[in-house]
């Protein structure tokens, strides 16, 4: 844990974007997540850490209701975005997912052109009125995802032809093209090499100015590098949640300390 650089974090906003209270998740008989209370602040990077199978990805997928697609998954408790309950029966998950974008563990661009990948979200949500606007959205998204310079000359070539790190940045561009308010990232760097990882981390830090970012990661160094707040999950419980600096230097719970010093997990 020598390279753990915990920068001085400035939490820009104390406004709560997502409020989760008493969240329980069941996969059939399996009680995967027990009584989780989390407040995710606006324009902040929140990292979820914990050993494999601790429920951090499950919780992340609750935040945009991707768990709906899994058979036998039941979510209880309340999760509110801007004080609107996203599990209210009146909520259409499609509208929710336009507001809460997601980037997955493995880069998964559509087997279409780079342009079509980014333009897909705005197209299906009717965010642009004409081709020029769409072009602009695509360019802005690619610029924000730090992919514009590499991709501008090959917008028509397939997204699957990019390298792994470029593909992941393309997926980020695709996710931010719909102007979401929250960006969920499920281990976005686990399939990438260190250089691509560094680029993505830099990107996450820049994206913080516009969205609140929630990132699940297995790398504690990464959590320490990119996040302002960190939540530690263990065996389905939220063990500790607080300022990243405090979690890594002065954990309150002995389990957190054991995990970050490498004794469990």
């Amino acid at each position, binding site marked *: 844990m020598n390279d753990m650089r915990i920068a001085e974090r400035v939490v820009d906003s104390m406004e709560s974007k997502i409020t989760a209270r008493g969240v329980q998740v069941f996969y059939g008989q399996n009680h995967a997540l027990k009584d989780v209370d989390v407040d995710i602040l606006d324009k902040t990077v929140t990292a979820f850490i914990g050993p494999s199978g601790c429920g951090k990805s499950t919780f992340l997928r609750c935040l*945009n209701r*991707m768990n709906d*697609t899994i*058979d036998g998954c039941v979510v209880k408790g309340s999760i509110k975005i801007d004080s609107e309950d996203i599990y209210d029966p009146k909520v259409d998950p*499609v*509208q*929710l*997912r*336009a507001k809460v*974008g*997601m*980037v*997955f563990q*493995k880069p*998964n*661009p*559509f*087997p279409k052109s780079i342009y079509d990948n980014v333009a*897909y*979200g705005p197209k*299906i*949500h009717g965010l642009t009125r004409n081709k020029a606007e769409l072009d602009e959205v695509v360019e802005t998204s690619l610029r924000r995802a730090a992919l514009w310079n590499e991709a501008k000359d090959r917008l028509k070539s397939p997204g*699957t032809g990019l390298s792994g790190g470029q593909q992941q940045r393309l*997926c980020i561009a*695709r*996710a931010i*093209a*719909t102007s979401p308010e929250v960006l969920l990232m499920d281990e976005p760097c686990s399939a990438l090499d260190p250089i691509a990882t560094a680029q993505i981390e830099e990107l996450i830090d820049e994206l913080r100015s516009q969205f609140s970012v929630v990132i699940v990661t297995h790398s504690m160094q990464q959590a320490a590098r990119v996040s302002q707040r960190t939540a530690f999950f263990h065996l389905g419980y939220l063990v500790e949640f607080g300022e990243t600096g405090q979690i890594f230097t002065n954990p309150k719970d002995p389990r957190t300390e054991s995990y970050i010093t*490498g*004794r469990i*997990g």
Partner: protein
Amino acid sequence: MTDISGGPAALPVSKSRRGSLLTQDALTRRRNAAEARFKAYGAVAITLSMLALVWLLFSIISVGSPAFRQTFLTMPIELPEDKLDKSGTRDPAVMAKVTTVGYAAVIQAALTKAIKEKGISTDGMTPKDIAGIVSLEAPAQLRNHVLANPDLVGQTIDFEILANGRVDGFFKGRVTMETARLDSNIKPEQLVLAERLVDAGIMAQRFNWGFITFPDASDQRPEAAGLGVAIIGSFYMMIVVLVLSLPIGVAASVYLEEFAPKNRLTDLIEVNIANLAAVPSIVFGILGLAVFINFAGLPQSAPIVGGLVLTLMTLPRIIIPARAALKSVPPSIRDAALGVGASRLQSVFHHVLPLAAPGILTGMIIGLAQALGETAPLLLIGMVAFVRDYPGMPIDGFFDPASALPVQVFSWTVRGDPGFVERASGAIIVLLVFLLVMNAVAIILRRRFERRW
């Protein structure tokens, strides 16, 4: 990050049991021998199946290819007005009163005249023997031609007529002088005369378009039998199968794979689809007879009924590969689409279905090819009937009686005249060509639309 405690425990393998790397020990030798044996079995199996295939193709092509050549007589035929159109009105309705018997006399006269002009000897042959080298179908050929062009009456036309099947068989090696002696249908003298006619340029073999275009012919005239009605019937049935089974099959597989909840009912449906694919096809024939003909009152022998029955049979065989194709689309694509806020339907139609399309198309074409070669269910709905009239244009033509390629093969093989054996093999060649073309299309489509991710 788990700590490793304790020193390495001694494993119960002593160093001395491992010999030099340069010599194989007994276990390695046995394993290598087993691998070599397995490869040999595989090679033998492939060789046997290739031999069987080559033998099959060779026998079919060697028996069937003569069906594509046919012996014809070409000679000037005088069409006397007093015999063919006594009224002189040139009205086909009136001229139709003259039956094929009248035309047979015209042909016989023309043949006798042609033989005399060429100076060919016909010693010891009755006029009936001489006329016997011409097909029984020839008068009908001439009659149809004249009724179609009534103005020809009174003229002398150069006309091509079919030779008798036995004479044709003689030139193809099927009939010899010895067999002709034992055969009541042909005499050796007739064969000798046929040879002389060939020398005189009246009789010749050429490519037989009639085999593709003519309708079926009766037992006595294999030389006139063709696949025209059967090809049209099979084509109409394939249209019905395609139009019905593509949308139904794709909709069913997309629903089952992407939308249906996983519960007892869908499990039951899945098992039943898998079972239906294995149900013997003749069972579908009985079902079709009961439902479409006896209950719904659709006509017998009609391509529409054949197509419906084949659709029932093909559907499970399309749904299974279509579902496999949908299943093989990586879930990350669905996640990606849902993640940017696409609805379930959008994720299926924008991403999953286009990626599964090559697999679905391949399954579809293989299902169609199976349907094209299916015989048993068609026998039960009356498609084995003897049909000489071409079915009409679609869609009305779907309700006209027709035959089908595999059924035509079946009905020709049960007929007595050896000429039909050659026809049946020829029909198999035509069927195989259709199947090869369809499979080639399947391969090309798959190559073309295949995408990697």
